[in-house]
Structures are given as structure tokens and as C-alpha cells.
């Protein structure tokens, strides 16, 4: 009997015939923390008198409070810098970028087991890695011992056919799917995305799908490692890290969900849950105080390119603030080289240093009472951007950029209709 991607990777890393429902102990290739979850993890290790790490790649990312807005957080950063220096873990200091973007750029390989003290660790699943978010104690112990335990998840196969229409992106696809499944529709499950609709997507678009798997409750969001994966790793100077990995044809799935990409329209998630999604036509005209383009979901160069195309020679609406945050230093440099930053600044945007920016309400764009933010992030929970009296809507970078110009939520197909879009 064939295996799903999750079963394949966990079999390899546990040395057992791992089947959905089994409890396995698997080798950990990459264990990572960010600055919000790292300090608690380090304290657990100190409590256990563990000062060295065993995971092949152990990393600390200073990204959520970057640079730190308060002394308490600066002190947390000191703790993480010191621990990584002594323990053999690597440190990615402020300015390097968001944990998940940095993991896919430089550290994760197809077939790896990746655990991260951050729920969106599932982003790396698009590289064909079993990547999942866990709490501080789990990651700390996994990092120290180089292994952890898993219950092998059942898999929902998401079979996507056809090409997305102009103005519709993978963000719309995943928002649509989460709306269908519900925020707990895939709890404890693996999502496995496949079909010709996925094969034709760029890696940048695939990362969006895996990133948001957790918003349906899933443990991982897996995609086979194929030609596109190879091209991506090659472009990062990591061709030797590539290997193909795919599920077996006769794998057993708990559910198969089919989506016709051609029929999708731009989606918007309304406050205060990610599964509260509606076609953009139902959101049209909602006045927007702040637009935020960035995060581990949609802060990649491809996203900024789309935003720049829309914002070129245009101005944001006078009542709408526009905040743009490249997800990593690499993205920032690339955007600079391509002249995108100038387009943004001329359009009235403020560009922040690489990191999480205002995504989690720590700094750089906290909402005022009653204010509306249209964001390319992955979460719109009440209070998420620092104020429980704020309202967060989620959409693609195209919807966000176009809405910034119009000052209200707008349908990006209005502009994409005018010119054909390239594949992917």
C-alpha cells in the first residue's frame, strides 16, 4: 500500500513503517525559534542544564520585535544571542528577516523534518519537508535531543486543476479552501496539495498555500518536490540540497478535495477569523485606514513585484496608510535592485526593515480604535495587530495594492483584465 508525503518522510526519519495514526520518534533536521518563543525554550533548557544542541541545524531568529521597541524585548534578544553563541545554534539577528522566509531561502531541504517555535513553520512544507509548529518546550527538547515524537497525521489531498485566472492568486486559493474547510476543518491532519494546478504554480505561490495550512488547523501543508523546487533551490545556490520526493500513486487519503482553479475569484477574509472568507465583490467599498503588504505569507519578491506593478506612477488614497515590509534581507535587496522601493515610496508607502512588521501587534503599525487594516498576512484574529478594537481583512498583494490606491477594498481583476498575465 502506498504512502502519503507525510508517511513517506516520517518513515524515513523514524526508521519505521510510519502509517497514519502511529506514534513515531523522528530525527529532527532543523529546529528553529523566533524571539517570542525562544526565551521560554532557552529557559526550559537551562532548567534541564542543557547547554549544547544536537539537531543538525538549530536556529534562533530575531524577527518579531526587530528592532526591539522595548527594553524587555531587548533583554530577550540578549538572552538568545548569548545562548546561541554558547550552544552551537545559529543566530539570525534583526534585519535578516522572518523565520519562515529565512528557513526556505537557506536551510530547509526536501525530505527534512523541521520543527519551529512558531505556528507558521508549516511554510517549509512547500519544499517537500515535514515542517510543523510546536510550543517552546517541544522545540527546545527537539533541538537538544535531535529528535521528537509525532502522531503520523491522516492526510487530506487537495487536488487543484487548471490555471488561476488573471488577478487571482494562490492567496485567493488558500483563503477559499480555508473558508470551505473551516478554521478547525483539518485539525491534526496533513494537507497535501497536488494536481496540475499546483505543478504550474511558482514556489513563491506554493509557499503561501503551505504557510496557511495551519489556519485550517492542519499540522503540515505538504507539496511534492519537483522541477520547480529544483529551480528554486538552484536559484538560491543550493542545487545539491534538491531531491525529488512525491507521494505514492496508491496512497490512502482520508479525504480528497477537488478545486477548479479556473473558477476561483479573489477572496477576502473578514474579521475576526480566517475562515470568514467571501468573494472580494462582497467586500468592495469597505473603507481602509491601513494597507499592510508583507509577512511570511506574502512578503516575497514576487509579491512585491505584483504590488509595484499596480502602484507604479500611482498614489495611495490620502486617508490610507501603506506599509510595506520585505520578508527578508534578500527580498529587500532584490526589491532595491529592481527599483521597486522607489515605486513604493513615490506611491506614498513607508518601507520597514525585514521582519514581521506590524503582523502580530508588537510594533510598526498598531491599529487605532475602530480602524480597518487590509493585510496580506495570514491571521485576522481580534487583537492581532495590537488592538482588539481594530478590524483586519486578509487578501492577496494585488487586492491590497489596488485597494491602497482606491482607499477602499477593491477587485484587482479590474486592472488585470486590461493585460494578460504570465503563467504562474
Amino acid at each position, binding site marked *: 500500500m502506498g504512502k502519503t508525503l507525510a508517511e513517506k518522510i516520517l518513515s524515513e526519519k523514524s526508521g519505521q513503517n510510519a502509517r497514519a495514526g502511529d506514534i513515531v520518534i523522528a530525527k529532527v533536521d532543523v529546529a528553529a525559534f523566533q524571539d517570542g518563543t525562544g526565551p521560554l525554550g532557552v529557559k526550559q533548557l537551562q532548567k*534541564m542544564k542543557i547547554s549544547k544542541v544536537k539537531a543538525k541545524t538549530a536556529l534562533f531568529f530575531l524577527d518579531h520585535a526587530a528592532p526591539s521597541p522595548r527594553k524587555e524585548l531587548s533583554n530577550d534578544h540578549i538572552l538568545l544571542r548569548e545562548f546561541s553563541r554558547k550552544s552551537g545554534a545559529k543566530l539570525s539577528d534583526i534585519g535578516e528577516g522572518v523565520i519562515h522566509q529565512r528557513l526556505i531561502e537557506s536551510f530547509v531541504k526536501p525530505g527534512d523534518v523541521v520543527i519551529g517555535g512558531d505556528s507558521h513553520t508549516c511554510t517549509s512544507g512547500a519544499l517537500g519537508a515535514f515542517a510543523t509548529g510546536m510550543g517552546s518546550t517541544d522545540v527546545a*527538547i527537539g533541538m537538544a535531543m535531535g529528535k521528537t515524537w509525532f502522531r503520523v497525521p491522516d492526510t487530506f489531498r487537495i487536488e487543484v486543476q487548471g490555471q488561476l485566472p488573471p488577478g487571482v492568486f494562490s492567496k485567493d486559493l488558500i483563503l477559499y479552501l480555508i473558508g470551505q474547510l473551516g478554521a478547525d476543518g483539518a485539525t491534526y491532519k496533513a494537507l497535501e496539495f497536488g494536481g496540475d494546478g499546483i505543478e504550474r504554480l511558482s514556489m513563491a505561490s506554493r509557499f503561501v498555500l503551505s504557510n496557511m495550512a495551519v489556519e485550517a488547523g492542519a499540522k503540515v501543508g505538504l507539496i511534492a518536490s519537483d522541477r520547480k523546487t529544483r529551480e528554486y533551490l538552484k536559484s538560491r545556490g543550493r542545487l545539491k540540497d534538491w531531491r525529488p520526493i512525491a507521494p505514492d500513486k496508491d496512497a490512502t487519503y482520508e479525504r480528497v478535495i477537488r478545486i477548479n482553479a479556473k473558477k476561483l475569484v479573489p477572496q477576502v477574509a473578514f474579521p475576526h477569523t480566517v475562515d470568514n472568507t467571501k468573494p472580494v465583490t462582497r467586500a468592495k467599498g469597505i473603507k481602509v485606514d491601513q494597507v499592510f503588504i508583507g509577512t511570511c505569507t506574502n512578503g516575497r519578491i514576487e509579491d512585491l513585484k505584483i504590488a509595484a506593478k499596480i502602484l507604479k506612477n500611482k498614489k495611495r488614497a490620502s486617508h490610507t496608510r501603506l506599509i510595506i515590509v520585505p520578508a527578508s534581507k534578500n527580498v529587500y535587496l532584490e526589491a532595491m535592485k529592481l527599483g521597486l522601493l522607489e515605486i513604493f515610496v513615490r506611491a506614498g508607502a513607508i518601507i520597514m526593515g525585514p521582519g514581521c512588521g506590524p503582523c502580530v501587534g508588537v510594533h510598526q503599525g498598531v491599529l487605532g480604535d475602530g480602524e480597518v487594516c487590509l493585510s496580506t498576512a495570514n*491571521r485576522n484574529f481580534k487583537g492581532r495587530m495590537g488592538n482588539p478594537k481594530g478590524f483586519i481583512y486578509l487578501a492577496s498583494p494585488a487586492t491590497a495594492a489596488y485597494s491602497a490606491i482606491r482607499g477602499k477594498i477593491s477587485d484587482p481583476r479590474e486592472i488585470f483584465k486590461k493585460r494578460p498575465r504570465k503563467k504562474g
Partner: protein
Amino acid sequence: MVLKGRVWKFGDSISTDLICPGRYFHLRSNLPELAKHVLEDADPEFVKKMSEGDFVVAGNNFGLGSSREHAPTIIKLSGVSAVLAKSFARIFYRNAINVGLPLLECNTDKISEGDELEVDLSTGIIKDKTKGFELRAKPLPRAMLNILKDGGLVAHIQKHKDFKLD
């Protein structure tokens, strides 16, 4: 072990942002202070109203959202003896067991705010003393029961020097 206390009732989808708001990010290394804000965005008065030993009772998907272990940690620190919900989000569930916060998965519809409960953790039997009915919670998976019995994951590893799950 039998726990006794009063019920504080919450709805569906209580996220980790509601339990442990991101705006208190700077208090994450000061857990007793952070615990003063537990569940603040779901019920601003909760910390003032509750007493040691009380139960948090909620609907579906309790604890969805971020992986912050601070969420179950401050629920425990605030004195809540257990959380009862129709379902729990995955990372929260594992974190709660790791930090030794008992969770009970059961149909919570008939339990109301202010009810007096008696919860037997070893059998999973929940008695609503106010209304006079009994419920049985879904048993914990064995791997997790073993970790909870040892007092959380750190204690488990210290005791066995490895994972000892079955």
C-alpha cells in the same frame, strides 16, 4: 485526582491572541505579570472575577492560532484547574499537556457560567453539581497521558532521559 470549582464560559474559536494578546509580547519573560492579562481580550474582567481552582469552559477549537506556549502556561498560572472544550487546536493541546495544564474534550453545551463542577481527571468524569448531570470526556492519547502523569515534558525527559511514550 478530583478538581472542584466554578465555571467561566467562553464561546468558539478562543484564539491564543485572545488568551495571551500580542501587545503584551514584552511580558513574555515575566510570566506572573503576563498571567494578569490571561483571556483579557475574550473577557476583560476574567482575571478579577475568577478564583483559584475554577474551570474555563468553551466551545470548538479552543487555543487556535499561534504556537505560543505562554497561552496554556498563563491559564495554569492564573489558577485555572482545567480547560473543558468541545475541541482544541492541535498545537495548544500538545503545549497544555507539556506544561501540565489538564484539558478535557467533551460536549460543553449544557454547562453554564457559574455552575459548580467536579472533575475526576483519572476517569474523565465531569459532574455538574448545579444542574445534576454527568459527562465523560474523551480519554487522552496514551503518549500524552504518560507526559501529563510525569508532570509535563521537561519532567518526563528528566525522568526517562528519553521519550517513553508507550
